[in-house]
């Protein structure tokens, strides 16, 4: 059942259909919101508010203009940026790291050798550390680029920039990542 069908069901009064939308898109939303460097508690608040706003404005979603994940991530981005602005005024930013709660210490898959699993874990940890060090714009561009749920054009739309700009950010972000992982300066 696609997002358009689920949305129609929600508008017809079937609230349970909205739960399916939440379960389907929560992962991508959390992954994207973590790039803003907010605390886990604030990230969850924003994620929840993003879905609530989507619910309240569901009738205004136009599937011809944007996919549901693209629309949802745009809502999340605007809320996150607003929170960052408020926090900077309060000087109460809690920069615990965009990967907080996702420490990369995933359990190895069954069948993996211990050595292979440790190597994978180490690379994942280094990758996360390098991503943390990127400027926020580049970090968000990279995360959006590798999300399955959004296309490059949708990523540009979410960030409010041309496709060429998002491509440049991705390129620059990958260059910095490569240099950081190789231990050299760009």
């Amino acid at each position, binding site marked *: 059942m696609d997002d358009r069908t689920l949305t129609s069901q*929600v*508008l017809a*009064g079937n*609230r349970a259909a*909205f*739960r399916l939308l*939440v*379960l389907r898109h*929560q*992962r*991508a939303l*959390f*992954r994207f919101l*973590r790039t803003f460097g907010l605390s*886990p508690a604030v990230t*969850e608040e924003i*994620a*929840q508010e993003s*879905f*609530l706003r989507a*619910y*309240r*404005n*569901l*009738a*205004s979603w136009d599937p011809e203009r944007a996919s549901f994940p693209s629309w949802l991530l745009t809502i999340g981005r605007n809320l996150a940026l607003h929170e960052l602005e408020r926090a900077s005024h309060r000087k109460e930013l809690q920069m615990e790291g965009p990967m907080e*709660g*996702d420490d990369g210490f*995933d359990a190895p898959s069954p069948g993996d050798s211990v050595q292979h699993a440790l190597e994978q874990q180490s*690379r*994942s940890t280094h*990758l*996360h550390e390098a991503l943390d060090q990127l400027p926020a714009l580049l970090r968000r561009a*990279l*995360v959006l680029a*590798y*999300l*399955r749920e959004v296309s490059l054009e949708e990523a540009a739309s979410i960030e409010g920039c041309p496709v060429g700009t998002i*491509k440049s950010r*991705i*390129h620059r972000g*990958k*260059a910095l*990542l*490569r240099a950081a*992982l*190789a231990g050299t300066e760009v």
Partner: protein
Amino acid sequence: MLLCDTIQERIARDEPLEDAAGRHVAACAACAAVLATWSALDADLRADAGKDAVVPDGFADRVMAALPPQPATRPPLLDRPWFQLALVNAGALAGAVNLLRLLFSALVPNTSLGGTP
């Protein structure tokens, strides 16, 4: 002769390589190493994105509990953006037509375009 710098730049930008460039990469140790590095980074990023992000337990339940009691409904016709835009355009068109009528009547005073004689 394809330049290594040009090819490596295209590899970095994830641009597709035509056959000649691909053959060069296969034959050139430096370009092959660059391709391997960028490919490994790309694979790591894809693998990382493919992992399930840590979503707090019970998040969907909390969202559903916070939903307003009334279901999301379609906005009334007057609140729909396309309808408002259509009204604005209709008003602008009517204004333009009246302006043209006024100008025409001023330029050609003996001609009537309607209205009371």
